[in-house]
């Protein structure tokens, strides 16, 4: 297998299938500029840029990216970032120095790469900068100078982010040899063949969840079956009746897709993980990992979505998302079966809806409670209502009792209060590191109250919707 690193083709044959890109860079490639701060996707010190042939570079966490998954791609590390003055003189780097953006410097390569990704996309403005670096932690600077560098980087002589790399990558065999035991099929037929051949294979899509098994618990799976290049799984079918989303579509593509379809979803997605996580993490992985605190399932529940499952033998079945989760981290996926796609009816998408994510830290944090509400309005009355929660039970769950109260009701204060009381009553959440059960129950009601009031009054009750203070 070959990949290019900073424009130089590198041979990576002989690596274990569980080798991460970060470990490879820091040891075999002799490029220790990329740092490990956590090995779990949380700190961004390991950020590198990745680009397939002809693709725009995107920031990823190299610590949880498997080497086999970047076969044939171009990797740019901090050492290879080039500008008009040669390596080490990219405008981002100059701006970081001039703004005093580093103190201990350990987070710095990661910030430089995240900002270089933003620079390549010509992203401007404070919101864009914050969004680009939300997955990078700095313990020293307090971030102000780094934000400043993000603003000032455009003041320097312009630079290509990946000089010549695109050309080099285009000349490479995209399906070059992979580490033995690493399989990255290109279509479903090949995927199913491999599933039959290796019924015990370890499945991975974006790896943002699965690879933590390797980096945190030191598992060394073999063989590895990578879903991220299966063409059908990467397809979005924008049909007239429904939207069919391939399971291996990463969040960053969903953000673009939903930009006009659902601003509430986009606002939530901007807080799902970080830019690096969203460039890799997939919808299929969010469902298949069966987590009760995954952010997409409540949304899919509120939209009456169905999941399409396919098996090694080519069999397919579609089930409502509501039937997919069986218990805590347990789904109906049978051995050899995988998530192929998720289908959302257009009609459901068109209903007024609200999606609220509550977490201890605003950015890049797992939800304490997530609420997705969608409802039809028939004049003064409500039609069908969907109220789905994450973080309140062992699985993502619709609150049937609440929906019953709302369906067909007039949205007056009494109804809202009854619905909120029901939302508190129906769940028995747990105390954990993120919140107490009591707070979760209070929030089940509080978020619902906010959603219902917003839908009724057309107001925005977000804490950030408040006017500035005029002294």
């Amino acid at each position, binding site marked *: 297998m070959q990949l290019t690193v900073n424009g130089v083709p590198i041979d990576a044959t002989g690596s274990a299938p569980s080798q991460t890109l970060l470990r490879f860079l*820091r*040891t075999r490639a002799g*490029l*220790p*500029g*990329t*740092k*490990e*701060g956590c090995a*779990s996707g949380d700190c961004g*010190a390991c950020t590198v840029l990745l680009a397939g042939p002809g693709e725009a570079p995107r920031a990823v966490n190299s610590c949880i990216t498997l080497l086999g998954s970047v076969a044939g791609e171009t990797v740019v*590390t*901090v050492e290879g970032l080039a500008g008009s003055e040669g390596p*080490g003189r990219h405008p981002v*780097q100059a701006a970081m*120095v*001039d703004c*005093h953006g*580093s*103190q*201990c*410097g*350990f*987070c*710095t*390569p990661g910030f*430089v790469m995240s900002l270089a990704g933003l620079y390549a996309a010509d992203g401007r403005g404070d919101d864009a*900068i914050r969004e680009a*670096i939300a997955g*990078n*932690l700095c*313990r*020293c*600077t*307090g*971030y*102000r100078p780094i*934000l400043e560098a993000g603003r000032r980087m455009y003041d320097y002589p312009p630079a290509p982010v990946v000089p010549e790399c695109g050309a080099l990558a285009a000349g490479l065999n995209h399906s070059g040899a992979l580490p033995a035991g690493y399989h990255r099929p290109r279509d479903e037929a090949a995927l199913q063949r491999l599933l039959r051949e290796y019924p015990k294979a370890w499945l991975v899509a974006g790896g943002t969840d699965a690879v933590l098994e390797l980096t*945190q618990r*030191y598992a060394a799976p073999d063989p590895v079956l990578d879903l991220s290049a299966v063409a059908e799984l990467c397809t979005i079918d924008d049909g007239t009746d429904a939207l069919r989303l391939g399971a291996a579509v990463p969040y960053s593509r969903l953000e673009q897709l939903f930009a006009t379809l659902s601003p509430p979803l986009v606002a939530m997605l901007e807080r799902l993980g970080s830019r690096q996580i969203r460039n890799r993490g997939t919808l299929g992985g969010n469902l298949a990992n069966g987590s009760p605190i995954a952010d997409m399932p409540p949304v899919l529940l509120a939209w009456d979505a169905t999941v399409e499952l396919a098996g090694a033998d080519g069999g397919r079945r579609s089930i409502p998302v509501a039937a997919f989760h069986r218990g805590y981290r347990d789904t109906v996926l049978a051995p050899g079966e995988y998530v192929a796609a998720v289908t959302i009816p257009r009609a459901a998408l068109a209903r007024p809806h609200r999606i609220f994510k*509550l977490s*201890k*830290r*605003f*950015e890049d*944090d797992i939800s*304490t409670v997530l609420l997705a509400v969608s409802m039809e309005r028939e004049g003064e009355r409500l039609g069908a209502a969907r109220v789905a929660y994450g973080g309140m039970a062992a699985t993502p769950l619709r609150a049937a009792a609440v929906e019953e109260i709302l369906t067909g009701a007039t949205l007056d204060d009494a109804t809202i209060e009854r619905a909120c009381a029901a939302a508190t009553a129906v769940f028995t959440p747990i105390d954990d*590191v993120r*919140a*107490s059960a009591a*707070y979760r129950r*209070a929030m089940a009601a*509080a978020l619902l109250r*906010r959603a219902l009031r917003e839908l009724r009054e057309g107001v925005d*009750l977000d*804490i950030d919707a*408040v006017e500035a*203070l*005029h*002294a």
Partner: protein
Amino acid sequence: MRKLAAQGPVPPAREGATDPVGRGLPQDSAWRHVAGTAVYVDDMPTYPNQLHVATGRATVARGRLTRLDLSRVRSAPGVVDVVCAADIPGNGDIAPVFDGDPLLADGELLYLGQPVFAVAATSFEAAQQAVTLAEIDCEPLEAIVALTAAVESEYYVLPPHEFCLREPEAALLAAPLSLGGELHMAGQEHFYLEGQVATAEPTEEGGVHVYSSSQHPSEVQKLVAGVLGLPIHAVQAEVRRMGGGFGGKESQAAMPACLAALFAVRTRRPVRHRLPRRDDMVQTGKRHPFWNRYRAGFDEQGRLHGVTMRLAGDCGCSPDLSQGIVDRAMFHADNAYNLQAARIQGVYCRTDKVSNTAFRGFGGPQGLITAEAMLDDVARRVGRDPLDVRLDNLYAEGDLTPYGQPIEESVLPDLMRQLADDCDYRARREAIARFNGENNDVRRGLALTPVKFGISFTAKHLNQAGALVHIYTDGSIHLNHGGTEMGQGLHTKVAQVVARALGVRFERILVSATRTDKVPNTSPTAASSGADMNGMAALNACNRIKRGLVAFAAEHFGCDEGEVVFADDRVGAGGDSLPFEAFIKLAYLARVSLSANGFYRTPVIDFDRDAAWGRPFYYFANGAACSQVRVSALTGEYRVERVDILHDVGDSLNPAIDLGQIEGGFVQGLGWLTTEELAWDDTGRLVSDSPANYKIPTAFDLPEAFNVRLFDRANHAETIYRSKAVGEPPLMLAVSSWCALRDACASFCDYRFNPRLDPPATPERVYWAIEEARAGGDR
């Protein structure tokens, strides 16, 4: 003031074309940071025979090790060596001050996750996989995990201690009003981005050379020698830089260094021990949680008459540095206020958890926030704006602290008034009152709080430093000093001092890695003292070199020694001068020494701990911050809208670096007080053991408007070029944000009282505080 012992008087600040002092030069490594070429310990190349260390851990919080079967570990792929406590040739206790920190558990288990044995294997992964194969049986004993339980059962690591000023109990009784309160505050994980790491290489003499990410290389050297049973000179420790320290690498860096060194000597191979993040979070100490109680007696204006406090620190399973830390909490329990009469009691509690350690502020923040909570409560009781109550209680020159140090310089009355004016405190207070009167879903809060922080190690002997300066024949200068670089810009500041002292261009100077064989017996880079002490030591070295150079110059130029000037990269006298390098070449040929070491010890400090009276601090650093926040009554979510800071760094050596320390310290303090929530379960297991569930601030969390300015006033004490220490004090400026959150919550009960809001004020805790305020009728 007494004359400094080890050097001449400090030259006055001099404005000059080449004078770098006071300029915002970038950090010496800035370009290497952004290019990825700055080398951290784990970036050093490995050898083909390199070994990597991992540790096996205790599975109970307190108990005894009954069986340890490592046969499967020994035969695991890649494993080369395995050690447990019995294999340590020297002293297995790596405690910094008092005993009690075994490198590997020796029968007795002190906390869940404690290293019990260690392996060295051919790869990082092989070592980590191997340790999971151990069979460890532990006999559990009843563990005390909660601080409250430790206080109640008097489970201590050290005996309680107290300061007493005048007759506080009588003053409380006589005061027109009184109140009491308490605060439970959580600890804080350092979360330096670079985890603990060390590499050890065997030397031909049978010793080791250790590369460590440590704030205290001399301690690493001493402890490694102790563990190996070698004289100290057989071990050298070297620190080029750390990827963050914040106190977490003062004593805690010793463990990986000692294990790596032990294996290096046993196997005669290079050995690296890097703690993966989870091990780092579980196996190294954190900021001390505290449970603090206070009673205040005061008048109708809120002027204090007397205060009693009990500060109970959660030291974890051993003393480590806790004596100094709880002491420093006590030293800062007055913050900036004249308590008039006070009894400050410190309790050094033991819990069966990892031993807590130094963290920026060293206990000071936990004492200081208690004073601020108390002042806010007093203000509510008397119905005055908390800022006015604060101003009325500030120390004036000549007042006495509860530990007997007189206030020589009272900066805060001016500083706080200036800040209040500059940031429109009064107008905003009114606007917020109006806003809160009209809004129920979102409310705002405001607070302006001071910081007064004592500068000096309270362990007197640590207040010494050394430096080494060489001038080479081409005029390039090599600087080495006892301080370590962890991002605070120390090397840059000390190089600026040297450049001014020798009157040369900054670029002439290269600072190299801190090494125990260049400057010996150093103190930790801690207590904000790095630039103060090492800057002075470097200046002393320069002055000693200059003595010879001046004599030679007088001879060369045919003038009096007093006429010789080092300035603008030249050396001269009268009208005559030479470029620095030309002069140096001549000096070399004339056999003048071009190298000297320097030494410094902080003057005047003198504190008697037993009597709890004296002068522990050379001077105080000051600052104040005004925070404005908004909170959502629906969810408890909040935003820090605006922060204005005015901070006293004396005459700044480097305003850009100082600004970075202030902003960074503030945000770190904000994390401690808002989203950083350490959690342990009842069995003593750390539940918040990764950045996935322990949340330090991101760029989004910094204040929406953030205005930081330096307060322009020279240090009255004779510090290096009249600058002030800046490392720790700014962390406590974030207390203003916590007070502002509490202010916003109190708006829900019309400011009749402050609801309970124990730090960290997570959205959940803010929500409950608002609920308490709303239900406030029954209080």
